């Protein structure tokens, strides 16, 4: 494996947080690199179409405009090296004094990278939601379905049903319609009042972060005008189909069932931080939000408890793109200060308004977290339902193992749950929920192993 000269700052993740950090750092004569699995920057929220496509009116919704402006500035920054199409496989903190090491799979093969400061801003992913039939072709996370639409102009179904608890599904449904697709129905599991009441209670207060809320409201209006029904209080029971999704069975509150015919289903029950790199690096973690998801701890400059490793964006708790931008800017400032490029009084002065804005955005994020809370909305799953997709481990096997196993790692050893290439991203949350219930999932989870992303073994040895 070849190695190049160390970076001053290496940023993992080219989404809103990573971009904001890079933009605060650039122009200071530092060697800055940004690694991302996607070929182009943007993160999942602004996942860009291929450069070979000519895009018109791409992501026109108003709430995306500040993010698109930031992305434009990021792409124009001449001293920020873009390392796209590359997966960070592992982090070795303090591989030399004052230097951290990473192993990165690039399109040209695996390589070692060293950096004086590291920012982990790897975003989040859709919370996996086990359900009978959820492994059938045609069943997607709603974020994944949306990525097809916005970055590829591809609608993966003729008749789509979106189901979940998160208001994002309203925006995705409208993006499908705008692309010329058809959405049979958007289903919220919670009652209508649970979605609306927290917002109405706060609406008089001039919500900061209300952009996302307004976008959802506009989307809802447009869906109504297009004849797409938005339903409430229906719980998914199973995905029907033999070779491909053919329908979704929903349970009404009175226990009766409704069968919706469709050929694609999106599940949207919330988001989990990508936590494997901080956990592998041994950073102190905490549980955040109503999902009690693994999030990296940090100080006021977004530095973790490992000196020189910073964290920002959803890595520190899912709070949305606007908050990620502010956290990224703070991390950029923090790294600038820690590299001796800005005095502490100057950094503090610059940080003060950012921190005030962040506090308001986090209050909004907490409101959204409450509205989208899936507690009480999870489908009932029988013993035949697959919990761990990679290793085909069923709920039945895991329930049996829990008779003797006291930890997630013990269940993994006994059943192979979490042993596959996804490193537990598909199953760990569900396993912890099963072990401890939604409010008390205090197990440390799986021990994260190298490589955190699948890589051909020959790339590491060749």
């Amino acid at each position, binding site marked *: 494996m070849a190695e190049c000269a160390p970076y001053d700052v290496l940023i993992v993740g080219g989404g809103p947080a990573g971009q904001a950090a890079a933009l605060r750092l650039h122009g200071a004569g530092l060697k800055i690199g940004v690694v991302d*699995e*996607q*070929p182009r920057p943007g993160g*999942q929220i602004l*996942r860009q*179409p*291929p*450069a*070979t*496509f*000519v*895009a*018109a*009116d791409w992501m026109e919704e108003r709430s995306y405009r500040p993010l698109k402006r930031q992305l434009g500035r990021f792409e124009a920054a001449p001293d920020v090296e873009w390392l796209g*199409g590359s*997966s960070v496989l592992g982090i070795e903190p303090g591989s030399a004094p004052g230097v951290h090491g990473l192993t990165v799979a690039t399109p040209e093969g695996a390589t070692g990278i060293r950096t004086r400061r590291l920012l982990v801003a790897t975003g989040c*992913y859709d919370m*996996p939601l086990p359900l009978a039939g959820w*492994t*059938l*072709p*045609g*069943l*997607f*996370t709603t*974020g*994944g*379905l949306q*990525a*097809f*639409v916005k*970055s*590829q*102009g*591809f*609608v*993966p179904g*003729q008749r789509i049903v979106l189901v979940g608890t998160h208001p994002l599904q309203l925006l995705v449904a409208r993006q499908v319609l*705008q*692309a*010329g*697709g058809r959405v049979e129905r958007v289903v919220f599991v919670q009652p209508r009042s649970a979605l609306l009441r927290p917002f109405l209670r706060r609406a008089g207060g001039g919500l900061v972060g209300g952009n996302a809320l307004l976008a959802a409201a506009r989307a809802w209006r447009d869906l109504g005008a297009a004849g797409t029904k938005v339903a409430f209080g229906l719980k998914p029971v199973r995905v029907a189909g*033999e*070779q*491909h999704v053919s329908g979704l069975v929903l349970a009404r509150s009175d226990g009766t069932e409704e069968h919706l015919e469709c050929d694609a289903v999106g599940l949207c029950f919330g988001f989990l931080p*990508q936590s494997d790199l901080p956990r592998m690096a041994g950073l102190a973690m905490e549980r955040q939000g109503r999902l009690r998801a693994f999030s990296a701890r940090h100080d006021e400059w977004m530095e973790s408890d490992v000196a020189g490793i910073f964290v920002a964006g959803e890595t520190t708790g899912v709070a949305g793109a606007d908050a990620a931008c502010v956290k990224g800017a703070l991390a950029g400032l923090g790294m600038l200060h820690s590299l001796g490029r800005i005095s502490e009084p100057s950094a503090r002065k610059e940080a003060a308004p950012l921190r005030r804005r962040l506090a308001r955005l986090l209050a909004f994020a907490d409101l959204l977290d409450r509205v989208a809370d899936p507690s009480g909305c999870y489908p009932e799953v029988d013993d*035949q339902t*697959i919990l761990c*997709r*990679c290793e*085909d481990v069923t709920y039945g096997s895991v329930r049996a193992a829990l008779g003797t196993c006291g930890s997630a790692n013990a269940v993994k050893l006994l059943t192979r749950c979490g042993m*596959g*290439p*996804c490193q537990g*991203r*598909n199953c760990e949350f569900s396993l912890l929920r099963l072990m401890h219930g939604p409010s008390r999932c205090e197990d440390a989870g799986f021990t994260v192993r190298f490589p955190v*992303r*699948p890589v*051909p073994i*020959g790339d590491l040895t060749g």
Partner: protein
Amino acid sequence: MRSSRHFRRPGEVAITVDGRLVHGFPGESLATLLLAAGLDVFRIGAEGKPRGLYCNMGSCSECMVDLVLEDGRRRPMRACLVTIGDAMVVERRAGSDG
């Protein structure tokens, strides 16, 4: 369904999937090409049922396929992260019936 509401695509290319030619557009992800062609089974699960792509963002590894290199070596890749290239050769782990 490929939509042309917001995008204009360059001229088509063809790649080989399980020995058959499949058309797509330069820059597209391999996942898009496969699903658009109706080739949406990525493997057969232990319970004998077909398995589909799930997350489309590199997290779940459910869209793993083998790229067959010129020297015959096989390179396992997540289809959602692969940009198609002219004359690419791909084999799914579902066999050619899926």
